[in-house]
């Protein structure tokens, strides 16, 4: 469904991705791991066409999106929902208005219908009581949950993209977000989560890519990841030793 074919990308002549190639099949639950600045978020932005590769091709459901116009990309973007780091909620809008944003843009729903839909989505992320709060009044975890609710408002994506969904959260909130991600995947959506936290990646994914030097140095399952002898992967995996208990799937 998603194919990266020798994709190269850099910011201001600083190379980030170097002839990166991988493929993601429909419904896959995948985690992209790697250090800061390795291009994890860049991959998500390339998938939804927010940035364009310097060279190489990106295919979404067999369609090359590399040279599509901004309007043509809207069709591609409807296939995904992306939850940015920290949620990217609109500061000037309440939780309700944030979740209702796309409903107001793209549907002709009445105010009552919008209210019912927003409450349904907020119930899904366990945040209905926060419906009238402003983003500034929410905790980090609540931000992410509202962002997830907002991303599901208009259409059901074929894949959810999470950019560091648990970054900066305490273990309890991280666990809540991971559980929510797993719960949403039970509705038939695949997901791709970018993270540097192996413990969270293990909870939500069954396939792992590890990025280093702008390319994939590891692509495999949880057992292979944990047994990898690659020095940087070992550094990431060794963090698990300090976790008293790793719950969730492997």
């Amino acid at each position, binding site marked *: 469904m998603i194919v990266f074919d020798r994709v190269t990308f850099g910011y201001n002549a600083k190379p980030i991705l170097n002839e990166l190639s991988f493929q993601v099949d429909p419904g896959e639950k995948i985690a992209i791991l790697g250090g800061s600045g390795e291009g994890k978020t860049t991959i998500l*932005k390339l998938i*939804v066409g*927010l940035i364009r590769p310097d060279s190489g091709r990106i295919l979404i459901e067999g369609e090359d999106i590399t040279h599509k116009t*901004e309007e043509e990309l*809207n069709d591609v*973007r*409807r296939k*995904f*929902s*992306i939850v*940015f*780091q*920290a949620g*990217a*909620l*609109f*500061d000037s809008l309440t939780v309700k208005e944030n979740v209702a*944003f*796309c409903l107001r*843009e*793209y549907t002709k729903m009445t105010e009552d219908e919008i209210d019912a839909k927003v409450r349904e989505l907020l119930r899904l992320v366990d945040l209905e009581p926060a419906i009238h709060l402003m983003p500034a009044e929410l905790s980090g975890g609540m931000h992410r949950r509202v962002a997830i609710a907002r991303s599901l408002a208009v259409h059901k994506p074929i894949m959810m993209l999470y950019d560091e969904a648990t970054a900066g959260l305490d273990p309890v909130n991280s666990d809540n977000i991971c559980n929510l991600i797993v719960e949403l995947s039970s509705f038939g959506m695949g997901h791709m989560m970018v993270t540097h936290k192996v413990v969270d990646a293990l909870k939500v994914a069954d396939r792992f890519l590890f990025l280093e030097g702008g390319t994939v140095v590891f692509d495999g399952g949880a057992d292979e990841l944990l047994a990898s002898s690659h020095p940087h992967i070992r550094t990431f995996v060794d963090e698990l030793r300090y976790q008293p208990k790793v719950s969730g799937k492997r």
Partner: protein
Amino acid sequence: MQIRPLISSLQDFYLLSYHGFLGIFRRPFYWKDTLEQMDYAGAGSFFIMALVSLFVGMALSLQLAAELAVLGLKMYIGKVVGITIIREVGPVVAALVFTGRVGAGMASEIGSMMIGNQVDSLRVFGVDPIKKLVTPRLVASLVMLPALTIMGDAISLIGAWYIAAFVSNQSSYVYWSTVRGVLDFQNVFSGAVKPFMFGYLIASISCYMGFTTRGGSTGLRTSTTNAVVMSIIMIIISDFVLTRILLYVLGYKT
């Protein structure tokens, strides 16, 4: 300074301001956002604009009274103050105040939306960020800056009258009749055209600088500062160019 990035930036600025302007005539129309921006830019700026205009008018009147008294021409305070304020000082002062309050706000608001991925969110939702963010601000500036300029001019003239009447002991009747005398088509037209150009420049430059914000709070500081500095420079330069053109068009000899 490198030429290619400069040309690229000018091209991006042109495209942003062009598409922002075209957005006024194309669906969808973001009425609520436009009204919010008009309220912020217009009603929100009125008090500071009134305060600044009042004291500019009073200072101008004091300065001119001192000079005109030497020549025995104090009765012309109203005429000179009126022309100066309506044609030149009023529009420029209003634009500078507008830049400081509204332009800086536009750049920092859009800048923080860039940093917080909110602009990317809009694009992912299929919403054109220029239509949603730039056009309402452009409309607000094009409507509210001329309105604020007219109110500022009136308040400046009142401030100048206060000094002329109560400090320079001039007749109020003479002051207001000479002011009324300068309110002809040429002077009013000269003063009315400029705020539209200034409003367009301030909104375009500020929004553009907001969209170029990169990095964290330092990037936001840089883009906001650049928005204010570039707007001020462009206001002063375009004021000179417009004055030259208007004087020519209206048949003044210089």
